[in-house]
């Protein structure tokens, strides 16, 4: 590195650091104009840049900062007080400085842009007489809002020249840190191996040594992880400025409060949440907080408060963004979601208010009536959600209409070493990240028969009254069936995208700290796997990507309901001819077969005949603390032509539908199966309650028109 390069690099690093601080100081100063210390700090930062740029021959930078310094020195000396206009001019100057620094960093020279317009404006502040703009002023070069990266994140390790005064910190190349983290990962693997060998060998000395190794490795791992941590404030630094600019643009008055800026986060994760957080801030200012007039009319303080809070909890980093704005109107979301076809009318009827508010994260959803240039930058909240989920995080929204909105983001502390559950399938082992794990269920043969509803097309597990879709890991991975099938069923209950499902594996081994190794580029497209790791015995195990597995098995749906987790596409059958649909297959009478779309089903239940009570003309059962009206298929379709097959003893099979908070139960003959099939629907005359017929599983099957049926049911209720 040549001599001038070293000064230049140092200059760029330290100037950028100062500028980040500057944005914050300016915003703080607007709120508290008398803060002399802030004025001093701002002046000093610009002053230092000006002084140094003289040495580096950066005349344009020097001219620009000189003009800014002139204004600032008057503010410092109390000869000039800051107005919003002056602040904006000064901030534009800061942006100009940034632009020059960026050019210096990439090209080594300061470029030809002279920022004449900014300089003229700053000069006009100092001596208003000279306001007449000179004619040769170049058209205003719009200065990009400083959203760019901190340019000088990667520094070479500084060799200390001579003996310098105690310097408590050292800048370290990030690549070196990554390498260290990698090595520690290898060490963790070697440690696991040694522990395993020690346990097998049973040698006391070896066990003792391996325990020490274990302790040291854990501490080293923690230490190296800490070196990769940066306070979240280093990213938040830019936010006061962004919020200030936005609120000026939207004609709003917003105060940003930041709590927990010292909360430490792995730097790779920090990079990943940077943009989603900015997007969330934009949304809050643009859509959340009302104009001062609107706020006053509601009896709120004219200045809206945006609170950004970060803290560690349960091994995760929590980030909350709360505004005291207008909140989200569930009715508007409902209307929009229907209009844009995000969910079906039928499904939205079964959603809670909270679930509806969270529809803003659904792909293709945007409530802005007009796409503004603030929030409408082509990315919606779904992108925010996707980006946060990509790093193993979650985002949740809660809102009180009229009172404000809270967005809660949870991200892991680090991605490199994670706790995982090791499961096996045949002779292979797979690791499942513990963040996705809800619980483990082991079903003995007898239990399995009652708890698992069906094992052909779409098996379903009954778990404490909920129905969970079941996925065979074997099927997902296209592994052949073993010769002897085990009597015991091991189910790992996982959470993918807020949706629980069960994964059937051959066995569950243990939880272990695993080191995530990325898959080679050729395998990156295989969404079923998130990476690979090396186990204690030196063999490789693949890490399952839970969302990928769920997608492949088709158990994810757009809706966020927890109760019904059965695959569906969310629209009526009639529009879906030829498409794959999950259908619930049932019988009536001796041999009449019926089918209805599974996504319209809320639950499948069995009721003992003795529990049916009479209420007026209706039959009802007590169900989940409420009264569930029952209606038979005969009431919908008319008497069964083939005669009843009712033995009068076995429990009633009931399909429960819910709509608008009300439920009704349809008593059917037998529930046969759930099939996933491409069906061709043939319309049949005008038979009440039937939308058509199709051939399913080689048999003619009538498709129940649930809407008509439900209408009847509602009447009954």
């Amino acid at each position, binding site marked *: 590195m040549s001599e001038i390069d070293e000064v230049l690099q140092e200059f760029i690093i330290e100037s950028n650091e100062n500028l980040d601080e500057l944005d914050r100081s300016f915003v703080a100063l607007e709120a508290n104009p008398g803060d002399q210390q802030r004025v001093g700090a701002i002046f000093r930062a610009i002053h230092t840049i000006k*002084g*140094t740029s003289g040495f580096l021959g950066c005349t344009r930078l020097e001219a620009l900062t000189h003009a800014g310094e002139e204004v600032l020195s008057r503010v410092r000396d109390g000869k000039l007080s800051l107005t919003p206009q002056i602040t904006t001019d000064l901030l534009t100057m800061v942006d100009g400085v940034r632009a020059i620094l960026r050019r210096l960093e990439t090209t080594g020279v300061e470029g030809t842009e002279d920022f004449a317009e900014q300089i003229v404006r700053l000069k006009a502040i100092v001596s208003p007489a000279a306001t007449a703009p000179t004619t040769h002023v170049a058209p205003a070069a719009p200065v990009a809002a400083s959203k760019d990266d901190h340019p000088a994140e990667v520094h070479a390790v500084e060799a200390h020249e001579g003996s310098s*005064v105690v310097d408590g910190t050292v800048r370290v190349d990030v690549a070196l840190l990554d390498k260290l983290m990698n090595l520690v990962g290898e060490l963790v693997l070697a440690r696991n191996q040694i522990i395993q060998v020690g346990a097998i060998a049973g040698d006391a000395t070896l066990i003792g040594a391996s325990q020490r190794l274990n302790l040291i490795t854990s501490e080293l791992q923690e230490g190296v992880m800490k070196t990769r941590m940066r306070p979240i404030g280093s990213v938040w630094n830019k936010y006061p400025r962004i919020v200030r600019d936005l609120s000026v643009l939207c004609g709003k008055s917003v105060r940003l409060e930041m709590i927990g800026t010292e909360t430490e986060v792995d730097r790779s994760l920090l990079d990943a949440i940077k943009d989603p957080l900015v997007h969330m801030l934009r949304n809050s200012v643009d859509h959340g907080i009302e104009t001062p007039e609107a706020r006053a009319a509601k009896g709120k303080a004219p200045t809206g408060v945006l609170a950004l809070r970060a803290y560690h909890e349960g091994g995760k980093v929590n980030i909350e963004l709360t505004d005291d704005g207008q909140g989200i109107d569930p009715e508007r979301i409902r209307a929009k979601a229907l209009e844009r076809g995000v969910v079906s009318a039928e499904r939205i009827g079964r959603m809670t208010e909270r679930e509806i508010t969270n529809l803003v994260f659904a792909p293709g959803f945007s409530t802005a009536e007009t796409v503004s240039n603030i929030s409408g930058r082509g990315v919606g909240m779904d992108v925010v959600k996707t980006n946060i989920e990509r790093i193993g995080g979650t985002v949740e929204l809660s809102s009180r209409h009229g009172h404000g909105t809270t967005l809660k983001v949870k991200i892991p502390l680090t991605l490199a070493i994670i706790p995982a559950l090791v499961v096996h399938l045949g002779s292979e082992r797979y690791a499942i990240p513990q963040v996705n794990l809800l619980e483990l269920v082991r079903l003995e043969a007898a239990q399995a028969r009652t708890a698992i509803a069906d094992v052909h097309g779409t098996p379903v597990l009954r778990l404490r009254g909920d129905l969970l879709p079941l996925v065979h890991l074997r099927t997902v991975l296209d592994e052949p069936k073993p010769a002897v099938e085990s009597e015991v069923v091991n189910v790992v209950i996982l959470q993918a995208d807020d949706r629980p499902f069960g994964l059937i594996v051959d066995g569950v081994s243990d939880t272990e700290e695993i080191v995530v190794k990325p898959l080679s580029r050729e395998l990156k497209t295989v969404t079923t796997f998130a990476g690979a790791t090396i186990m204690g015995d030196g063999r490789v195990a693949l890490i399952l990507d839970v969302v990928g597995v769920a997608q492949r098995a088709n158990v994810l749906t757009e809706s966020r309901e927890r109760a019904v987790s059965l695959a569906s596409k969310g629209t009526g059958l009639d529009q879906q001819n030829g498409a794959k649909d999950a259908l619930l297959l049932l019988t009536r009478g001796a041999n009449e077969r019926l089918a209805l779309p599974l996504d319209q089903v809320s639950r499948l239940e069995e009721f003992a005949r003795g529990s049916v009570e009479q209420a007026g003309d209706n039959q009802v059962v007590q169900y989940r603390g409420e009264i569930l009206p029952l209606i038979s298929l005969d009431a919908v379709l008319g008497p069964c032509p083939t005669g009843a097959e009712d033995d009068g003893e076995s429990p009633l099979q009931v399909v429960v539908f819910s709509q608008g908070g009300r439920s009704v139960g349809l008593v059917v003959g037998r529930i046969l199966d759930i099939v996933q099939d491409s069906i061709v629907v043939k319309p049949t005359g005008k038979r009440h309650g039937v939308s058509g017929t199709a051939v399913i599983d080689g048999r003619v099957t009538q498709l129940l028109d649930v809407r008509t049926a439900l209408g009847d049911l509602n009447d009954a209720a």
Partner: protein
Amino acid sequence: MKILIVDDSKAMRIIVKRTLTSAGYGGYLMVEATNGKEALDAIKASQPDFVLSDWNMPEMSGIELLTALRANDIKVPFGFVTSETTAEMRERAKDGGALFLLGKPFTPETMGEALKSILTPAA
């Protein structure tokens, strides 16, 4: 044979060191401090032969440092390098006991000129 360079900007400290070297003072040990407070501690601990300080710094400015030194009866030779050079500042520097106030940007020649009567060059 030690010069203490006081400046909150690291880039500027590097520039000052280079200029001193070019001006023929490379033989001196150059130590650094980032503000007046640090400098005061360093001076008390290691008695440099000369202090070359910036004016405007956080925590404790150059002129405050000079005042503190003299109040502690430390008579180390002291010079300012600063980009602001108003008459009032020159006055205060002189009154405080500074030997010179060198404006930025300086060159090895102006630096050498300012130092020649105070320190013997040593390459």
